[in-house]
């Protein structure tokens, strides 16, 4: 029978909080430290498109996030907030 009698579960397969911070800092360093990244103002034609925005339909994204929150154990990602309902 698959019952854990104590919290002897192996360490997380993905990232721990400290790991998250380190990865983030590394990512920020890579992103912001490379001045060569990016484009000149006259090269922003693609970036200016509405379809290039990270979230093109906020209401749809919000509904999706809440449906997922009602079914899954995870939150976060593009937003720090979550919940707000009796979905305990």
């Amino acid at each position, binding site marked *: *029978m*698959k*019952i*854990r009698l104590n*919290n002897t579960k192996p360490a*997380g*397969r*993905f990232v*721990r909080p400290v790991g*998250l911070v380190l*990865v983030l800092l590394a*990512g*920020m360093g890579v*992103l*912001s430290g490379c001045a060569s*990244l*990016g484009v000149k*103002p*006259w*090269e*922003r034609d*693609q*970036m*200016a*498109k*509405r*379809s*290039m*925005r*990270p*979230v093109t*339909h*906020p*209401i*749809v*994204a*919000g*509904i*999706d*996030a*809440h*449906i997922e929150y*009602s*079914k899954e*154990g*995870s*939150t*976060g*990602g*593009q*937003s*720090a*907030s*979550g*919940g*707000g*309902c*009796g*979905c*305990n």
Partner: protein
Amino acid sequence: MQLKHKSQGRLAGVLGAMTASLLAAGAGAQTGGEDTPIKTNPPVQAQDQGASQAYESGPVDRETYSDEGLTRLDGAVLVYQEDGGRVQAIEPVLGVTFNGRDGEALSLHFTADVLTGASPFGATPWRDSQTFVAGVKAGDEGSTGASGNTVTTPGNNGINIATTTVEPDTLPLAGGFHDNRYVLDIAYSVPWGKDSLVSIGGGGSFETDYTAIYGNVGYSHDFNQKNTTFSVSGNFEFDTSKPGIGNPTPFSEMSADLKNGNRSKTTIGGLVGVTQVMSRNWLAQINATISYSSGYQTDPYRIISVVDHISGGPTRYLYESRPEKRTRTSMYFGNKISHGDLVTSLSIRGYHDDWGINSITLKASEYIPLGRDIYIEPGIRYYSQSAADFFRYYLLDNQALPEFASPDSRLDKFSAITPSLMVGYKIGKTGEIYARFSHYKPTGKNNQVNAPGYLAGRDLFSGATSNSFIVGYSYAFR
């Protein structure tokens, strides 16, 4: 109604409307938004014209116009249905965003949520019929309704008795509930100096037996010729659980008795992120989030079966028990890549919490214009999570009670695949009507070959397959 299940179909928009309003108001440009350009300047051509000038004199480039100086109205309706006659929901969302000419924005969103149906409440199936007795506050019968398998009879002290009979070999469902929820959000953002934006927002979610009040603040700053945006935000939430007959003591026997008073939960969280223009065609975003919750995090309606260790048959039903603290972290990496008129969206999210859940989420979609006015966007999402340390489908009658145990499918080990298709039609200079269909199909991964007797080899995963259909309209005017 005590048997009313609060989890599986709890659709609505606190997060949705909150995200929408935050994004729409430009709060935390790290997440972008329909009304908030992602800190990427409009192209030189548009800059020279001035977006608002272009709006007045036309023609407007419908791909690149700005909402500055415009008021935007958003409306959408979600129709949600789970297979097997479980939860159904209808959720209208209305929003308005007032955009100043200088980047200032104020948004309001209202969401209503109407849920009906039936959902699992934790009990395991059995070869014989099972009977569950729960309390329901007198006067609430109308909101819970007596479905075919539930009968409500008068009790004492204003608490009536709801008796639910479940057929043999059937996953027990609590049927016939009807619940409404209302959400109001407000968000405001204002430029701070030349390259920064400050935002503040808040709102509340209100239903008969649960309320949530929340607020957030954010700051973002552009540098590297506006190719890089650094963002940081924090949020606070205070929830109150107030079922009609009270919150049960964890691991107490399921009953119709009056239970404990209101319980609350406090959550604080934060996000740190960087959005980077990688090249002319590639925008990347990295976010890290953390949140900490303290207080009542148990589902007051959910029980767990204690079963005979030989036959697997139920011997008693106990209210579930969860830890009162939870720390959740996530890491998100998103990308938007254009190829001519097409745009590819790719993202990955890793998640970990100290309840023992680890998950990974992969998403991909392709924006495809079809002619001048119509576009489609097919997408696919994959999700996989491990089980919480204290997840149990059942407890055994010959073993001591653990400290915590919950049979909630959201704490189970499973994966889910979600294909979707959006179709949009652009109307006029700034309008759009769209429809989006998605199909969520979860699959349990918890092998129960060693379960006792009747339960051995059964698929006890109780997650539901569901369909969602959203139709919406968005329009901006001066």
